[in-house]
């Protein structure tokens, strides 16, 4: 058993995976999670893309694995200060927690884009306009109903809400919304086969294993209709439906459609914790994400010795990519810990 201690800030997939590997190699880990339960964003998911794996089961595996004697799990604690003191790292929370460690892994993850910032889409103003997160919550309940309590006959998904968008300051792509949207559209059609599902996109970025096949399945087996075009405005009609204006760029014609429910595929932004703690340590990068030392060979280290990064605090990543990222970070941390006295 090593006397070295690693502090992990963030109990989502990245933090959980890294904690497990570090503990297996006999390092001491203290893991902080601001929520009352670990698991991060996948707590809200029903199924994961692309294989529709049971999200609760995956999450349970991740969380159960870290029940180990050398992992201290501290939930319900939000770290608001991260500072280097000599060759030690110190974290503090606002309820007077103070903990020291030999190394820190920042795994503070992401937050979803606030759709109210796209006021032309009417989120928070009109009924029946929800985010992808809210849609997934409804899937967990097993039914999707309009605010009037009806089954939607027609639903539209809009990609790239708050991503690839100069107006909101987020030029980047959030990586997962394309495949997630296809997953949600298929989930909807599974529940309501006779309803229509439309998906408005700029590009279909099906860049992972099985993603392209999922896209094909969504068209061929489930009859999801894909329209290449942005939605310029969403307005409520007299009977609480949503009128959308778009252009079908492939047909080269303006397009109008009234739907019962509009789902906004909101992008990933840096979380408040990431912005705060990265800012305190001069590693705040573009868009407020945490910046690693180098994309190609040093993606887990930062310019501060002993401060490491894993997961979506760096950039939008899928669940599988986050897990891989955390494992690699764990190895880097172990190398570091072996090298210091």
């Amino acid at each position, binding site marked *: 058993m090593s006397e070295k201690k690693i502090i992990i800030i963030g109990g989502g997939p990245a933090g959980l995976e890294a904690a497990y590997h570090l503990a297996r190699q006999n390092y001491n880990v203290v893991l902080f999670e601001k929520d009352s339960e670990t698991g991060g964003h996948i707590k809200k998911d029903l199924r994961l893309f692309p294989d529709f794996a049971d999200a609760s089961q995956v999450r349970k595996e991740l969380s159960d694995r870290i029940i180990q004697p050398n992992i201290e799990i501290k939930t319900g604690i939000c770290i608001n200060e991260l500072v280097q003191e000599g060759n030690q790292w110190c974290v503090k929370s606002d309820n007077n927690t103070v903990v020291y460690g030999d190394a820190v892994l920042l795994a503070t993850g992401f937050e979803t884009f606030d759709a109210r910032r796209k006021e032309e889409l009417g989120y928070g103003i009109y009924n029946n306009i929800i985010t992808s997160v809210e849609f997934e919550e409804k899937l967990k309940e097993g039914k999707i109903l309009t605010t009037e309590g009806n089954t939607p006959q027609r639903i539209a998904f809009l990609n790239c809400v708050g991503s690839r968008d100069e107006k909101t300051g987020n030029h980047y792509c959030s990586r997962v919304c394309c495949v997630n949207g296809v997953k949600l559209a298929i989930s909807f059609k599974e529940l309501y086969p006779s309803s229509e599902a439309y998906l408005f996109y700029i590009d279909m970025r099906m860049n992972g294993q099985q993603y392209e096949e999922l896209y*094909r399945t969504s068209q*061929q087996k489930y009859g999801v209709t894909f329209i290449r075009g942005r939605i310029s405005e969403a307005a409520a009609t007299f009977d609480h439906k949503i009128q959308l204006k778009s252009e*079908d760029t492939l*047909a080269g014609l303006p*397009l*109008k459609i009234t739907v019962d429910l509009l789902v906004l595929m909101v992008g990933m932004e840096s979380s408040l914790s990431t912005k705060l703690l990265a800012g305190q340590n001069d590693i705040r990068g573009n868009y407020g994400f945490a910046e690693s030392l180098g994309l190609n060979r040093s993606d887990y280290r930062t310019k501060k010795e002993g401060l490491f990064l894993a997961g979506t605090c760096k950039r939008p990543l899928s669940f599988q990519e986050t897990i891989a990222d955390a494992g690699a970070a764990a190895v880097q941390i172990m190398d570091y810990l072996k090298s210091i006295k």
Partner: protein
Amino acid sequence: MIDLDRADTILYAQIVEKVPSALKCIMCGACSAACTVSNHTDFSFRQCHILFRRGQFNNLASELDKCMLCGKCNLVCPQGVNTRAVISSMRLVLLDMNNRNITL
């Protein structure tokens, strides 16, 4: 304007029934890029296909008549859509509607 509240998108189901692979089309344009007729005219099979899907039948029958049925589109489709069958069935469905004096 494509008004999806009024356009007849149900007619496309007849195409899908005859040619199930039509649903795989992602409108990449490989077909119209390879098309013989596109070398000489503005004809675009991809565009005809999407207009049919969206229920925009104005002038579509006469456009579809330009196809030479050479099958080059079939050779290049990355999704494996039976493009020749798609265009033939579109022509047949529209001809049928015309014969039965159904205005689209």
